[in-house]
């Protein structure tokens, strides 16, 4: 276990940024989001949740991955996706880091998505435990420990006040720790006690949260029964189909592929898409999901049943962003409770 004193943080970031691209939670106009850091930026590591999830770092909102051109009637394709730059993300919350391990199950499954793989391999994630969990948090229901970053984490970190504790969890994390040897300090008994106290306090706060009792076990694992449940109509009544839940969700990963440009010269990109939109599944001969009820059902069935069946985990980390952003106050917690017979 190492530590970095808060007075040395700027120097730590400076050193990291000499070797890597560095993403930090930066505050702009009151909103905090992970963005590439440079000196003088307004870093805010106290804000619990960034406005958007950091999935854009490994899965960009739009990514041009192919360039095409026609020369003398001959077509040529050039692969331009992915990213070679090595980078570090400092201060990601355990739920968001866990979402990376969930996205891995999609993109690193055969056939491996090479663009995603490149971004994922080149990144080092420093995950910061949540000293102050908020009312919209329900990560514990999905087995994520806010007091102990593990999933998707290369270095686990804890803010104990005067310093940030630093524990490498992976080979990549150990390497970065080596590079920062002259800034990171050793810890003593004092810090270990402080860590235990912090973890204890986090666990106590988690136990006080309104949704601490949210239990996934109440959901039936009978896919057809769930699909045909009467609750979808009622739950989806107020849904506007705006798609903000999919946009802010760290595990939503559906994408579209489009071409841009002219015949002689252009590019193909993929971009985030949303199962909440009516044209998502629309084909020349019709649409299997014609109503918002069907689209609403798809999103939650995917997260709570289909993804679990295929990958052994739920496609939700309980970050609570959808709870905060939904304009009609609908969210996955209400869905889970309702499905459970509430």
């Amino acid at each position: 276990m190492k530590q970095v004193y808060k007075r040395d943080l700027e120097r730590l970031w400076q050193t990291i940024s000499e070797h890597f691209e560095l993403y930090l939670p930066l505050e702009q106009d009151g909103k905090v989001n992970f963005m590439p850091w440079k000196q003088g930026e307004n870093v805010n590591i106290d804000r619990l949740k960034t406005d958007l999830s950091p999935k854009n770092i490994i899965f960009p909102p739009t990514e041009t991955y192919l360039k095409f051109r026609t020369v003398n009637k001959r077509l040529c394709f050039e692969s331009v996706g992915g990213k070679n730059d090595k980078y570090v993300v400092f201060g990601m919350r355990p739920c968001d880091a866990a979402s990376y391990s969930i996205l891995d199950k999609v993109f690193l499954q055969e056939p491996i998505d090479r663009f995603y793989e490149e971004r994922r391999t080149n990144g080092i994630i420093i995950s910061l435990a949540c000293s102050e969990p908020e009312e919209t948090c329900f990560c514990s229901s999905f087995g994520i420990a806010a007091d102990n970053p593990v999933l998707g984490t290369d270095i686990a970190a804890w803010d104990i006040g005067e310093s940030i504790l630093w524990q490498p969890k992976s080979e990549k994390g150990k390497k970065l720790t080596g590079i920062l040897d002259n800034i990171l300090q050793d810890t003593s008994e004092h810090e270990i006690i402080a860590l235990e106290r912090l973890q204890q306090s986090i666990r106590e706060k988690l136990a006080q949260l309104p949704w601490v009792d949210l239990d996934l076990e109440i959901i039936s694992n009978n896919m057809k029964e769930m699909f045909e449940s009467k609750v979808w109509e009622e739950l989806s009544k107020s849904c506007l189909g705006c798609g903000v839940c999919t946009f802010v969700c760290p595990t939503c990963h559906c994408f579209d592929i489009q071409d841009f440009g002219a015949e002689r010269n252009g590019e193909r990109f993929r971009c985030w898409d949303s199962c909440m939109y009516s044209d998502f599944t629309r084909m020349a001969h019709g649409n299997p999901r014609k109503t918002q009820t069907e689209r609403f059902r798809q999103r939650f069935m995917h997260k709570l049943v289909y993804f679990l069946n295929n990958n052994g985990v739920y496609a939700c980390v309980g970050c609570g962003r959808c709870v905060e952003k939904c304009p009609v106050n609908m969210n996955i917690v209400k869905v889970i409770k309702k499905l459970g017979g509430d």
Partner: protein
Amino acid sequence: MSCNCQKNVDSLIPQVAVIDSIRKETADVATFRIITPAGGKSFDFLPGQCAMISIPPIGEAIFSITSSPTEQRFLEFSIKKCGSVTECLHSMEIGSEVGIRGPYGNHFPVNDVLRGRDLLFIAGGIGLAPLRSVINYIMDNRRDYGTVDIIYGARSPEDLVHQEDIMNFWPKQINTKVHLTVDRAVDGWSGHVGFVPSYIKELGLANNKVALVCGPPIMIKLGLQALEQVGFKREQIYTTLELKMKCGVGKCGRCNIGDKYVCKDGPVFRCDELQQLPDEY
């Protein structure tokens, strides 16, 4: 020669291919023969599998491969004009270059379940395209399979695709019968008139065959009912489905039926398996 600028390739990156010939099937269906710039087919596949064809800058669309895997010289796609990519394809000339990637999805079980069995093919309209790949594969390995019955229907005689195969080639093969039908009677048509599902019942075929069904969704649904009425079990029936697809490799998230992705776990489904899935296709 095409250029050689591709680096370590992701599955989303197409290869260049050339339209070698275009055969007009109906007013809005044509069969495109596609080869690599150096000649030959772009990749090996099994009957029922699909490929993504791209026409920059219009985009990509997924199509079933209609030629047989035994055909080494080219890949064939029978494509109906019905959207932006297909409109553009239909306006292209021989020698034009397109992108192709694949093959995607599973295939009809030609190497195990279908071997030695009597087979019943049921197709409607352009739905003959994927089944033609199986049928011609079987014709090239004729001794490995039992009798073949092909029920094929379209709106009118002009809407029947692959006329050379259905009128001349297949009926001449041993133990092979072709049963054609059109929706409405027209002058000059002396064959059967009526919808495919009712024709299934009228023909009174033995129900110990394996049935392979492909057509418009309504024909598939009613065709399955008809098969069950004449004593087929769902375990004996295979069908192939189509939903909106972008990636073709089970990641873009839009072609799922329940927890199955049509691009990856399909497009071929055995009907008892399909019955376990939500009714959303």
